[in-house]
């Protein structure tokens, strides 16, 4: 029995698949999408407890994807990931509607903590 369902949206397939696999090891049901359009299709098709979304995506940008998700599912928490993160700067980059933001390279344990916090908050 998985703890919660998560959708990883990142154009780096290697990163997305690896994350899915690692989360699976931790009893978290994870799926991934490589661009905004397929991600939105997935979000509509099946329910997720939390979404992890890269700010920089080909085609529709991460911020637009965030707005679309929030428009349809206002209670679905979204955690952003960014390659532009800095020790002090990434907080400033967090879009208002996102639950939190994490800098690449990702610390998996920290990400899981944030996901748990997000899921708990929206239960």
């Amino acid at each position, binding site marked *: 029995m998985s703890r919660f369902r998560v959708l990883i949206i990142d154009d780096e397939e290697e*990163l997305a698949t*690896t994350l899915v*696999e690692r989360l699976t090891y931790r009893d978290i049901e994870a799926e991934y999408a490589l661009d905004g359009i397929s991600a939105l299709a997935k979000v509509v098709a099946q329910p997720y407890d939390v979404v992890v979304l890269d700010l920089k995506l080909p085609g529709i940008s991460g911020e637009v994807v965030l707005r679309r998700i929030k428009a349809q599912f206002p209670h679905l928490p979204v955690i952003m990931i960014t*390659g532009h993160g*800095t*020790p002090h700067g990434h907080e400033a980059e967090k879009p208002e509607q996102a639950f939190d933001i994490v*800098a690449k390279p*990702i610390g998996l344990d920290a990400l899981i903590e944030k996901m748990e916090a997000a899921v708990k908050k929206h239960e």
Partner: protein
Amino acid sequence: MKLTERPMPTVLPELKMAENKYVNQPDENLPSGPFGPPLSPYSRLRRFSSLLTSLIALIPLAILTFINYHQDTDAYRAENRYAISRILSNTKRTLEFVLEERRSALSFVLREKHYEELNTNEGLANTLQNLKNSFGGFIDLGIIDSGGIQRSYVGPYNLAGINYRDQDWFEEVILRGVHVSDVFMGHRNFPHFVIAFKKEKPGGDFYVLRATLDMELLTRLIYNLELDRRTDAFIINQNGIIQTPSVFYGGVLERARFEVPPFMMDREVIDEYLEEGQWLTTGYAYISESPYILMVMKRLDKPFWHWVDHRADLLWFLGISAALILVVVFYSTTYMVNRLKESDLKRARVFHNAEYTNKMATIGRMAAGVAHEINNPLAIINEKAGLLKDMAEHTPEYPQKEKTLIQINSIIKSVERCSNVTHRLLGFSRRMEVQKENIDLADLLKEVMGFQSSEIMHRNIIVESSFAPELPSLESDRGQLQQVFLNIFNNALAAIPNGGQIEITAAPINSGEVAVTVTDNGVGIPEKDLKHIFEPFFSTKGEFGTGLGLSITQDIVQKLGGRITVNSAVGTGTSFIVTLPLKSRG
């Protein structure tokens, strides 16, 4: 990144060169000043414009003075000529009158007395006495017959019987009927002159009445003029022999040291330039019916000094005006040139700040791009390593499990190190965006030192930092502060040898301010350079430095409401003190 790259005039090399050459290190090829060191263009401008303005102001003053001097001198000379002319005309009239009077008296005697009456010593003596009583100046009288023999004589000498037949004056009397002689000493041995008249006797014969007059008669007339000590009046004859005493031109009967002036009916006054500013005004008049020429000569000593004496007020005015003009010109020119220099420097500083900012923006953008591109593969490596670790941990009897986990942890640690670098790069790039935030100064200083960590390690440099424990956080711009301290650390690193030492302290001072001191034990800054180090383009690194680092650092610190000072001693080291307000202003 808010700044976009746009073409910026590349003025750095020109201005840097100009500044180094003209302001700080004058070029040897420049024309040198009169007292040695070559002049900067500002000094030349100051000199040139001082000179020009002074000339424009002083030349009309000088011209006016010059004209005034000439008018005054001309007036002075004209006045002199007039005075001399007046003396001449009066004295000529008096002399002519005196001579005419004597001539008339003798003429009267001849008309009134018969020859027989005169040709007795008694008669002649009576006549002489009468003449002496009435007119004065008569010394003796004599009657000479047509053969030139003195028939009778009354006077102080024994001259009866003397023969004048062969003398010039006797011939003149025979021809013209009257004769007035030059002055001579004769038998009497004092200056005197003679008036002689011819009288026809009935029957064709004639005789001559001859009177001797004392020259004192005429000398006294001139003496009575009471002339000033520079004016000399005297009589010469037509041969240039002085007849009455002269002050400057010789004694009686000496030849005058000037040419006999040409005959003129009326008086004549001539100005003559001698030398060394001396003028001689000569006036003369021929005395009618006599061989005499009246001379009045006056020396004008140095008319300029005469003018100076009379125009002291004007000269004072001139001197004070000129001094005032020079002072005003000097100060206004200096003020103007200094303002020009300031504004040139300010302009150059603005240009270079812009250029520098642009350069930094480009570097920042590049850094951000590189960091971002590296962060993605780093994330993949990190997750792949993490997955391997998960697999090893979750698979029972994983071959060489311990060794694998060690390798994986090593990979993850390396990724962490890389990500520290990329995160710092991204933080660095963010400095271009001005934003105020609460900053932990100690963290910021450590972070900035982190940029230099590899250089510090390779050069065995000891960095000692001591931060006050109660160091308050500070509201300021993180990026700008990073740049300030990065510049100061770079300078410190450049100043010290390998194995050198840098000490960083941060502590609150006063209320509401914090001071950061960065001290190195490097080469130090010579005192002559110390006052220039915050000027744009001043560099001691030769062609390797832009000379802008400290200038921009000072600009930023001032913009953040703080100040930067420097203490240095050659051979001991340098310390920069940055004082910052805890609360940002504006």
